[in-house]
C-alpha cells in the first residue's frame, strides 16, 4: 500500500511512531498528483514547494521531539475559493484567473498552524455555482469511479482529489450541497458544519447566509479530526459563533442503541433513483438492527425549499459578485472607452453562463417591484423550513436521507438544462436553509459501481451526533472498503 492511500488518522499515527516522515508522505501524494491528475484534473494549481517546505518543518519538529498538532504533516488541498496568500485564488473563473490573494483565509491560517502541507488549489464550478464542476472556466474534473461522469459540484475537485488519493483530505464549501453532493458522487465523506461553526473569512462569498466551509475526507474519523482543527470563533467573521469546539473524534462510536433517527417522507418520493433508494433503505435497516429507533417524520416545506433556495442564493450572489468590475483586481476588458462599457464588457467576458444566469436571477429578485414577491417571500418560506427542522428535532436526534436523488451523472447530461441540474441539490439544500450541520457518508454502490451517499442531518451544533451516526454507517455498511480502480503508480489512465 502506498502512503497516499492512507487516511489522515492512520498517517498521524505512523508519523508519531516514526514509521514514516512527513516529507515521504507529502512526496508520495505529490507523485500521485503528478501521475494521475492529468486524468482526474482535480487541481487548478499545485503548490509542491509550499507543501514540501511545510513537511520539512514538520520533520524538523518531529526530530526535536516536540509535540505536533493532529494534522501535522498530513497533506491537503483547498477548494480554489479559499484565499491563500501569494497563491492564485481563481474560483475557477476567468475573472480571477491570475488573481493572487494578499491574505490568508482563516481556515488556511488554522491549517498552517496545524502544519498541514498545502498541495494545491482545487477545481470547482465557477464561483461555486453548479453541481458538476462543468462550470469551471478551465476544465472538467473527472469522477474517479467513472471518468466519463461528473464528480459533482461545486467542490468537485476537492471530492475527486480525495477519492483519487490526490490529497489526504481537502476543504470545500457548501452553499446548497456543494460539499455533500460531490462527496456522495465520489464515494468520500463530506461534512457541512452548522452555519457559524467555521469562519467564512477568506472564503470567496457566493451566498453569504448559506455558505459554510467543511472537510472532505476518506473516512468519518478524518472528518471529525479536520473539523476539530478548522472550527471555532473568529473575530474576523461577525457570523461565526463563539462556542467551544469539542474534540469531535470523541463522538465516534459504533453503538447507536436508543438513537432516534427520523426518516422524512418527503425525501423518499418519485424522482429518486430506485437503486439509490434501496441502498439508503438498507442502511436505515442496518441502523435499526443495530438498535436505533427509526421513525417516519415530515418536513412539509421540503417541496418549497428548492425554489426558495434559487431565489435567496442568487440574490445574495448578485450582490456578492458585483465587486468584480475590473477596477481593482481581476479581469478587465481593455478596449472600453468609458467605465460603463468597461463594466459590462469585463463582466460579460469574465463570467461564464451559469454565473451570469444566477446574477440575472438574483438581480431580478431584488429589483424594485419584485422584492416582496420573490426575495422577502423566500425569506419567509425559509423561516417555515427552519421551523420544520426545529419541530422534527424535538422528536428525533438525526434526520437521514440519500444525499442526492441519483448517483453521479455523465458529463454533458445536464449542463444545458439548469432546472434538472438544480434538482440534484434538492436533498442537500434544506440543511443550508436551516443552517444545520449535515454529513454525507458512502453507504453502498450501484450495479454500475457508482457510490451512493447517505446524508445525516442534525440540529444546530449537533456535529458530534451526525459524526457518531456517520461512523456507525461507515462500520455497518463497510462501504469505505471499496476504492475506485485507478492505477496505483504512474502509467496510463485507468483500467
Amino acid at each position: 500500500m502506498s502512503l497516499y492511500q492512507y487516511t489522515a488518522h492512520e498517517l498521524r499515527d505512523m508519523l508519531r511512531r516514526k514509521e514514516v516522515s512527513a516529507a515521504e508522505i507529502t512526496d508520495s501524494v505529490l507523485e500521485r498528483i503528478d501521475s494521475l491528475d492529468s486524468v482526474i484534473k482535480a487541481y487548478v494549481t499545485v503548490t509542491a514547494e509550499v507543501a514540501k517546505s511545510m513537511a520539512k518543518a514538520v520533520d524538523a519538529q518531529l526530530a526535536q521531539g516536540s509535540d505536533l498538532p493532529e494534522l501535522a504533516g498530513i497533506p491537503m488541498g483547498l477548494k480554489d475559493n479559499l484565499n491563500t496568500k501569494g497563491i492564485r485564488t481563481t474560483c475557477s473563473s476567468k475573472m480571477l484567473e491570475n488573481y493572487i490573494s494578499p491574505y490568508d483565509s482563516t481556515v488556511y491560517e488554522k491549517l498552517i498552524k496545524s502544519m498541514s502541507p498545502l498541495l494545491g488549489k482545487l477545481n470547482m464550478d465557477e464561483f461555486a455555482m453548479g453541481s458538476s464542476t462543468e462550470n469551471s472556466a478551465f476544465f472538467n474534473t473527472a469522477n474517479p469511479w467513472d471518468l466519463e461522469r461528473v464528480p459533482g459540484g461545486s467542490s468537485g475537485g476537492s471530492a475527486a482529489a480525495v477519492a483519487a488519493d490526490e490529497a489526504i483530505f481537502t476543504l470545500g464549501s457548501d452553499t446548497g450541497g456543494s460539499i455533500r453532493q460531490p462527496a456522495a458522487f465520489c464515494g468520500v465523506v463530506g461534512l457541512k458544519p452548522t452555519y457559524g461553526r467555521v469562519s467564512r473569512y477568506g472564503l470567496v462569498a457566493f451566498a453569504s447566509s448559506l455558505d459554510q466551509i467543511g472537510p472532505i475526507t476518506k473516512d468519518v474519523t478524518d472528518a471529525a479530526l479536520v473539523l476539530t482543527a478548522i472550527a471555532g470563533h473568529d473575530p474576523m467573521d461577525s457570523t461565526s459563533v463563539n462556542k467551544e469546539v469539542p474534540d469531535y473524534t470523541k463522538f465516534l462510536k459504533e453503538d447507536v442503541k436508543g438513537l432516534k433517527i427520523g426518516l422524512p417522507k418527503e425525501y423518499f418520493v418519485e424522482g429518486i433513483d430506485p437503486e439509490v433508494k434501496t441502498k439508503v433503505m438498507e442502511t436505515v435497516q442496518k441502523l435499526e438492527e443495530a438498535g436505533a429507533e427509526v421513525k417516519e417524520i415530515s418536513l412539509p416545506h421540503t417541496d418549497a425549499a428548492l425554489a426558495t433556495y434559487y431565489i435567496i442564493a442568487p440574490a445574495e450572489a448578485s450582490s456578492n459578485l458585483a465587486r468584480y468590475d475590473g477596477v481593482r483586481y481581476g479581469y478587465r476588458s481593455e478596449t472600453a472607452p468609458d467605465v460603463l462599457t468597461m463594466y459590462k464588457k469585463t463582466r460579460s467576458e469574465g463570467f461564464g453562463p451559469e454565473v451570469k444566469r444566477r446574477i440575472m436571477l438574483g438581480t431580478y429578485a431584488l429589483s424594485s417591484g419584485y422584492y416582496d414577491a420573490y426575495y422577502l417571500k423566500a425569506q419567509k418560506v425559509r423561516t417555515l423550513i427552519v421551523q420544520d427542522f426545529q419541530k422534527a428535532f424535538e422528536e428525533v436526534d438525526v434526520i437521514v436521507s440519500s444525499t442526492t436523488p441519483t448517483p453521479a451523472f455523465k458529463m454533458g447530461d445536464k449542463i444545458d438544462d439548469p432546472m434538472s441540474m438544480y434538482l440534484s441539490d434538492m436533498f442537500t439544500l434544506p440543511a443550508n436553509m436551516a443552517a444545520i450541520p449535515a454529513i454525507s457518508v458512502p453507504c453502498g454502490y450501484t450495479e454500475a459501481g457508482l457510490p451512493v451517499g447517505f446524508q445525516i442531518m442534525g440540529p444546530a451544533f449537533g456535529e458530534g451526533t451526525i459524526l457518531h451516526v456517520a461512523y456507525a454507517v461507515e462500520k455497518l455498511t463497510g462501504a469505505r472498503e471499496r476504492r475506485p480502480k485507478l492505477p496505483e503508480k504512474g502509467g496510463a489512465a485507468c483500467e
Partner: protein
Amino acid sequence: MSKYETIIGLEVHAELRTKSKLFCDCSTTFGAEPNTQVCPICLGLPGVLPVLNKQAVEYAIEAALALNCEIQPYNKFDRKNYFYPDLPKAYQISQYDLPLARNGYVTIHVDGKTKKIGITRIHLEEEAGKSVHSGDNILGSEYSLEDYNRTGIPLIEIVSEPDMRSPAEAYAYLTTLKNILQYTGVSDCKMEEGSLRCDANISIRPVGSDKFGTKVELKNLNSFRAVQKALEYEEKRQAKLLDRGEKVIQETRHWDESTGRTHSMRSKEEANDYRYFPEPDLVPVVISTEWIEKVRERLPELPEAKWQRFVHEYGLPEYDTELIISNRDMAEFFEATVKLHNDPKTVSNWVMGELTRLLKESGQAITESKVTPEVLARVIKLVDKGTISNTAAKTVLEESFKTGKDPDDIVKEKGLAQISDTAELEKVVAEVIAANPQSVEDFRNGKDRAIGFLVGQVMKATKGRANPKLVNELLRKKLQ
C-alpha cells in the same frame, strides 16, 4: 417672493470621528497618500467580511440623542447596491428601512424667532472612496483615478423634515447642526475636508397651498454659504418658471459656485434601483435602554440649553449668545470668566472683541491661549476698580496674550496704572486750561463738545494714565 412659499429639506452627511473605519481597522486620518490606508476589507477583496466598530455606533447614538431623536432598539444593516468606481464592493453598507434613530428636532434662532426643524431619520453607513478626475471636471476627463483611503469611514446621514421656509433658515439649521455635532465631539465637521456634506431639496408653492410643489435636489454645495446662495438662486428660478406658467421638473441640479447658478445634471440615467436587502455578513445591533442612558450621561450641555441659559440667566443679547455658543470652548471660557467676575455683558464684550481679534491674528484656538479666564477676569477687574483705563486694559491683555505674564505685573512694569490722585490731576487740568483758551471759551459758550478736546489734552499730558472720568469731573468743576 411673497406669492410663493419656499419648502426646504436638507440631507447632511457627517463623518464620525472614530480612529478606525466602520468595518475594518484601517486608520481614518485625513490627508494620507492615496491608497495607503486600505486593507483587504475596505478594498472589497474576494472573501473579506465586515466587523462593526462599536465606537461608531456609540457616536451615532450620541448624535441622535443630541438631536432629540428616538433611538430604535432593533437595528440592522442593509446593502445598497450600485456600481461606481469609488465603491469597491459595488454596494454600500447602510441602513434602509430601520434607521438607528427617528423623530428628532433642532431648534434654530433666525431674526429673533425660534423654530424647531424636524429630523426625520439618522442612519449609520460607510463612506465611499474618492475619484480624482484627470481633467477639470468629470465629463471632460479622459480617465479618473481612484483612492480608497476614505472608503469605509463611518458616516451618519441626517435627514431633516421639509420644515425650512427660507434659505436663511436652512443656513441657521446647518450652523446649529454643525454646532451640536461639534459640541458632542462625534464629528469634526470640516466641510473643507469633506467630513461634513450637504444636499438640499427645495420646492415652492403658492402661499396658502397645502400641497408640496415639485422638488429639486441640489448637489455640489461645498459650504454653508453655498447652500444658502444656491437655495436663493433656486427659489427665484422656480418662481420665474411658475410665473411664466411653466412647470418645475423633478431633477438633480448642480450648483456652480463660479457662475452662481444651478444647472441640470444629465438625467438620462435610469431611475436608481438600489436593490436594498439585509446585509447577511453582519448581525443585528440591539440597543438597550441602559446603553442609551450610558451614552446620554456622557452628553455635554448642548448649544440650545446654553442658549437659553445665556439669554435668560446672564441676560446676554441674542447676538452675543449666538456668537459665543457657536464654539463650545469659547462658551466654556466665557462661563468660567463670568464665574470669576460676574458681569456677563462686559465679559462677552471682551471675549467677542479683543480676545477674538487676538486669537484670529495669531491663529490660535481659545484653548491654546495664554489668556485664561483668570487673566481676563483680572484685567476686567482692574478696569472696574479704576486701576487702569480701558485703553490700557487692551494693552495689558495683548501683552498677557503674547507673554503669559500676570496682568498686575504688566501694569506695574509698563506703568499703566491710572492717576486717580485729585491733587496731581488738578495741576495738569490747570495747565491745560491755561494753554487752551479758545476751547475753554467755546465750552463756556455752550459747545459741550469742547470738553472732549480738553480731556484729550489731559490724557495726552499724562500719557493716557489719567482716569478720564475724574478728569472730566475736574474740568467741569474748574470751568463752571
